[in-house]
């Protein structure tokens, strides 16, 4: 269905394997040589980012890059293909990995955390799996990397190894593996068994829309199974793993739950909607509006819950669930601008949310405070941190000149393309709710109170925590100004 030129190149595989090489280096350096170990992570992250960025010109010129790894079944290969949305996701993930590593170094050393070698190794593995998801060319490949991510993030989630980590790990893995083994795998194998004599590849370019051969009822059931089966996308009610996973250290929360893990989930959902079902099949499906309703419900409900959370990380977690709902909504809208807006939102939200998580972690490292009610006036002593928080919050809310505005704009346009006015209303209401639960944190931080003048525990966070969050806050601005490049990548010409 696509007439893009195909370039065979090993660079996608290099991007996938760089973290593995880094992991070997990390384990070899070990606890005895922490600086060398951190250096290996930086090298791996830089190599990965460099490789991914070097692919941008090729993609902007309209071609796709492919690399064939392994023949899984005789008719289904494990194929890596780099196209616009995948490359955008990969760029975001790999660049933010560098920022997060810098942040993690400061955070983990600041708190004298244990088992840092294990932490960095599984971090690298998770990024490798993320690259795999971004570059997958067919449904089975994306499933393999999705499962790899679930398993490789488990040691990160249970890093603290105590009772809360056990509960959090159980919730995390319980939700993820239950949905992927019991909902996703049957849906997946249904497509592979019944289409085209059982010899279909379910390739994202060639086999778009083949699911249209099923009956209407089967199609809607499959769509729902895929939506809930990719539980990393956080659609309610398969969302509870996300607040539960907040027991992890903040770098884990930041990257994985604001960028890698949840974005993998929602990217997979986008791929299913856009490249397995395709816009035509979705438009002709009668019950398809229900997926939009489910996504909208997720957005509204999670925003309302976020309002009531006092723990900052939990508030941000519910905010993430809502923002993920935007992306699923955009995918479900099934128009070009809607789906393009969804992919853009992956990038914009990643930048904004990771800034917010970095700030939350920096506050914890500097002052030990976790609750929003305790943060009054902290901005006086941590101006950089709270300034960045403000920028991240504005990006998530969606105000120009920050990146979040572009993606929400295109989502609204995409909804109007389909004459779904109610979606625009949902977007407006949820943006309003975002204001209510994010801005007060930032604003009251700058109020002067009598306690903050004398509280000795308020001080700025270590520089290796502050620098990354300033970088990502700057990134939110940059994404606005580079939005035309991004729009071109997702196939929406500005």
């Amino acid at each position, binding site marked *: 269905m696509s007439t893009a030129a195909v370039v065979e190149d090993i660079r996608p595989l290099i991007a996938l394997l760089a973290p593995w090489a880094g992991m070997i280096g990390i384990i070899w350096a070990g606890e005895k040589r922490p600086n060398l170990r951190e250096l290996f992570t930086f090298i791996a992250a830089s190599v990965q980012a460099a490789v991914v960025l070097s692919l941008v010109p090729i993609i902007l010129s309209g071609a796709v890059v492919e690399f064939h790894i*392994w*023949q*899984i*079944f*005789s008719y289904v290969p494990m194929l890596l293909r780099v196209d616009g949305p995948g490359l955008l996701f990969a760029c975001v993930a790999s660049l933010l990995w560098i920022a997060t590593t810098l942040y993690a170094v400061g955070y983990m050393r600041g708190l*004298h*955390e*244990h*088992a840092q070698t294990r932490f960095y190794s599984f971090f690298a593995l998770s990024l490798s799996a993320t690259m795999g998801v971004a570059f997958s060319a067919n449904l089975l490949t994306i*499933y*393999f990397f999705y*499962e*790899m991510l679930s*398993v490789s993030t*488990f*040691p990160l989630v*249970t*890093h*603290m*190894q*105590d*009772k809360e*980590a*056990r509960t959090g*790990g*159980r919730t995390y*893995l319980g939700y993820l*593996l*239950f949905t992927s*083994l*019991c909902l996703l*795998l*049957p849906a997946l*194998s*249904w497509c*592979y*068994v*019944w*289409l*085209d*004599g*059982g010899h279909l590849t379910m390739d994202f370019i060639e086999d778009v829309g083949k699911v249209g*051969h*099923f009956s209407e009822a089967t199609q809607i059931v499959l769509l729902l199974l895929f939506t809930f089966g990719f539980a990393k996308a956080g659609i309610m009610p398969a969302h509870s793993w996300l607040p539960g996973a907040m027991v992890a250290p903040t770098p884990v929360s930041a990257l994985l739950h604001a960028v890698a893990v949840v974005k993998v989930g929602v990217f997979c959902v986008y791929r299913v909607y856009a490249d397995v079902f395709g816009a035509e099949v979705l438009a002709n499906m009668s019950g398809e509006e229900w997926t939009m309703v489910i996504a909208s419900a997720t957005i509204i409900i999670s925003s309302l819950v976020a309002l009531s959370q006092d723990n900052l990380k939990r508030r941000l977690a519910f905010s993430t669930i809502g923002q993920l709902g935007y992306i699923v909504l955009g995918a479900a809208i099934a128009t070009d601008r809607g789906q393009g807006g969804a992919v853009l939102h992956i990038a914009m939200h990643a930048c904004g949310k990771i800034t917010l998580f970095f700030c939350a972690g920096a506050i914890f490292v500097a002052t030990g405070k976790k609750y929003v009610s305790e943060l009054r006036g902290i901005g006086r002593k941590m101006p950089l941190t709270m300034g960045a928080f403000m920028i991240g919050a504005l990006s998530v809310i969606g105000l120009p000149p920050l990146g979040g505005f572009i993606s929400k704009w295109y989502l609204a346009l995409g909804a109007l393309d389909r004459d779904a006015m109610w979606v625009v209303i949902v977007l407006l209401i949820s943006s309003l709710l975002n204001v209510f639960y994010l801005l007060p944190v930032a604003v009251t931080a700058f109020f002067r109170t009598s306690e903050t003048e004398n509280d000795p525990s308020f001080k700025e966070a270590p520089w290796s925590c502050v620098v990354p969050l300033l970088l990502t806050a700057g990134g939110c601005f940059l994404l606005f100004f580079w939005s035309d490049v991004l729009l071109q990548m997702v196939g929406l010409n500005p």
Partner: protein
Amino acid sequence: MSDHIVWIVLFPLMGAVACALSGALSKKLCYPISVISMIASVWASVHTMMQAIESPVHEISYILGGWSLDLFPRGVGIEFRADLLGALITLVVTGVGLIVTLYSKVPVQRETPGKEPMYYGLFLLQICGLAGIALTGDAFNLYVLIEVAALTGYGLIALGSNRAAAATFNYVILGTIGASLYLLGVGYLYLKTGTLNMVGIREVIEAQSLYDSPAMQVAFVLVLVGILIKMAFFPFHAWLPNAYCHAPSTTSCLLAPLVTKVMIYVMIRMVLSVFGVEFSFESTLWTEVMPWLVVVAIVCAAVMALAQREIKRMLAYLIVAEVGYMVGGVWIYNYYGLIGSIFHVISDACMTLCLFLGAGIILEKCRTTHFDGLRGLFAKMPLTMIGFFIGGFSIIGLPPTCGFFSKWYLITGGMVSERWEYMVTLMFSTMVMVVLFFRLIERIHLAVDESGKNLGKGHGDLGLTEEQTRFDEAPLTMLVPLLIAASIVMIIGVYNQEVVDQIEVFLRAYNLPTGVSYK
């Protein structure tokens, strides 16, 4: 030269005699003799596999005693037939046997000191029996070899502690009932068809259209019930947990992956090659009833596995559940189900081997396999744990291990035949296995005890002494076989298409429904 097929069985036989005799000279000779004879046997089975793939009819046939098919009708001499299925199973048997032989040096010395000649003698005879079961083409010879394998198995288990001997008694009784029922079934088969050769029996059934004959129906039931008892299909599984749990660790490493799987091979052989597809699937009611029995079997076994607090017992119940998978794969009556079943035989042998090798190493180093004694093993024995959990992830069915692919084919088979009960049970038991293995990971990795109380001083401290968390890996003769087994699990997963190609060539000779497909 097509008699490599006999050498597969002869090398272990000669090795067994040599071991038993060498006991008079020195007990230390037994290990090298066993390793050499197993390497020779593996070489012969690889050769046979190659020959079977290249032969135009995809099978190798060898009549023992020289009763060649030119002069005498089929069935006068005992035939060894290695078609693709038999060759694959033989390769698995001898391969697993080699790995366990390599592994056995340290545990045998520790658990059955002074009894090495007897132990290795029985060990090699067991391999001889199992390989023979996979190769024979004669129904009565199959009974003899089943009993050879069974008797040596009883001996291997009873060579352990007294508790093992007590567990063996139950196994002896049940195993003998099973094998005798099979023998009875063969009697009826002989009665009706006049021949004992497997191919010959099927030819007579087809020629004389014996599909509704009561004698044949009785023979079918007797043969299959006998095999079901021997493969520990629920509710005939009662002998398995005790026997495998209390046996010496090398014995359980050899028996657990192989015995039940070879019996499933026997069932597939009986159903496809002896009775034929038309008889087994269409003239009996088994295709309607068995999937429901399978559902009960898998659910009960999975739930009982959840209740265990000790690794080897948990693994024993997992074997019973896996047997349920394979039996279900056969009786849902379609092409993909049988591919899944046969592939699962191969992959389950490898992953069970991984798990039991790991459990044996844990027993060796920690003196216990109870969940309470496992904390901190990731630091103490990281390589062993990697090997063990590769087996564990394969049982759960995470790609790219071989367990994922066998589950894939079984699910496909369930869908094509619209056996939703089987599919739902597969999903349920997969979730139970996730719980089982991740609970184990929690016990090893987290500083929390069973009741949820924090141990240690926080920040990853597991509350253990320095000595308990020091790196102290297993001896190399135990570790290397485990890592080889783990890599085989991954390799079979990655190269599953090559294996499945051979299985498909085998299955194409039989008319199995492949299901409807949309364009």
